[in-house]
């Protein structure tokens, strides 16, 4: 299963590298010399069923292309990752919600305070010594 996932990734990489051009199974397989033609065909079929790949019929053969660019998928994931401050759907668990306005200013100032602490400590230490 993990191997299949890895292969899906490789196949997508080949399709993404071919920006704009649709590839036949053979062309994809040629880029992946360590994998059999039939394996590549299976993976392309799987990806097509998952809507990651679209295919068009040309003569007797199918030609394959990525359904969206790598950047588009990344943007989609980031959209979910940044999401709304109020996570109602619980699809993922964010590190920090977005803080804006006055709250953000207070936090920024707190951060400056935190950054300053070592200096303040050093200053205090000097005063005590003197």
């Amino acid at each position, binding site marked *: 299963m993990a191997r299949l996932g890895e292969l899906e990734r490789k196949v997508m990489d080949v399709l993404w590298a071919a920006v704009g051009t649709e590839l036949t199974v053979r062309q994809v397989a040629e880029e992946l010399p360590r994998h059999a033609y039939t394996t590549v065909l299976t993976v392309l079929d799987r990806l097509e069923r998952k809507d990651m790949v679209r295919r068009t019929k040309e003569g007797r053969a199918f030609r394959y292309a990525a359904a969206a660019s790598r950047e588009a998928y*990344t943007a989609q994931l980031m959209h979910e990752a940044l999401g709304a401050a109020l996570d109602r759907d*619980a699809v*993922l668990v964010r*590190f920090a919600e*977005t803080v*804006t306005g006055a709250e953000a200013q*207070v936090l*920024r*100032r707190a951060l400056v*305070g935190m950054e300053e602490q070592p200096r303040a400590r050093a200053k205090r230490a000097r005063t005590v010594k003197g």
Partner: protein
Amino acid sequence: MSPDLAAVALAGVSLLFLGPLSGWLDRAAWVTRAPRSAVALWQAIGLAGGGAAVGAGLSVAVARYHSGLVGGVGDLVGSLVGGHPLEGMGLIDALGLTLAVDVGVVLLAVVAITMAGTIRARARHRRLLDLVGVGTDRVPGAVMLDDPRAAAYCLPGIRPRIVVSAGALRLLRSEELAAVVEHERGHAHERHGLVLLPLASMSGLLRRVPYAHRAPRAVAALLEMAADDHAARRHDPGALAAALVLMGTAGAVPTKGTAGAVPTKGTAGAVPTMGTAGAVPTMGTAGAVPTCAFAAASTAVPARVHRLLEPRRSSRPVAVVTFVAAMLAVAVPFVPFVAR
């Protein structure tokens, strides 16, 4: 206990738990000292409140048997198994039974459907992530998304994924990054996604029930604190707090764009240069963290920062008492069934 009395008592418990009690827990400040136990208490209140509602309906339904609560439930089941359900049942009895079935079964089914949708969304996210995410030397075991905006998250599942964006890698110093990743590992390790799943699934359906819209948000904040604790045990809490501020206020803009507002990197101990952007006020006198300003916040981030910076107080007694309260709360709906 007589069924009539039980019905009134259970209905009261249900209203109390899902209403005022959830409001009290939502406002309580002490929960931040024992976030994991407080999560258990939230869950217990929800279970008990829902269970009491089902029990109240059931009590009404069996009142006509005049054989007590437990005997009445036995009679009801007997009548169903015997093939003559609803026989001799009045309108009120039937209503009570319907209520019990509705609350118990229909709501659970609807919540289950919503949960299934969330699980599908997670699976889809994972599928895309496994195709476009890349490994990174700076964070072994995490997946990187090549995007200039700062984000870090945990995608729950059987094998959870910890994800950081290229923007976050650029924004954070290595000790901050390590703390963030450990925070996400805390989520993954303690299966927080599983805790959130049923709560978040009911919030959209039961908007009228105060518990249903308070619990998801409150529990989400508590789970963040639990994960903060997990990270703070292994890394500098100050670094985690700094990361929280940076990530929370970086927002959706590319981290390059905010570079002026972010303390300069590399020069340890140096005074951070402040940007001229309007978003950041000119720096006042360096001093204590303005903790009082964190009181009323729209997100959990300020409270979490405050919590990490404040000297740690022992919270074990709070945790134990809270957990015991949670166990007792779960038992409440069963009391009428065992009380004489």
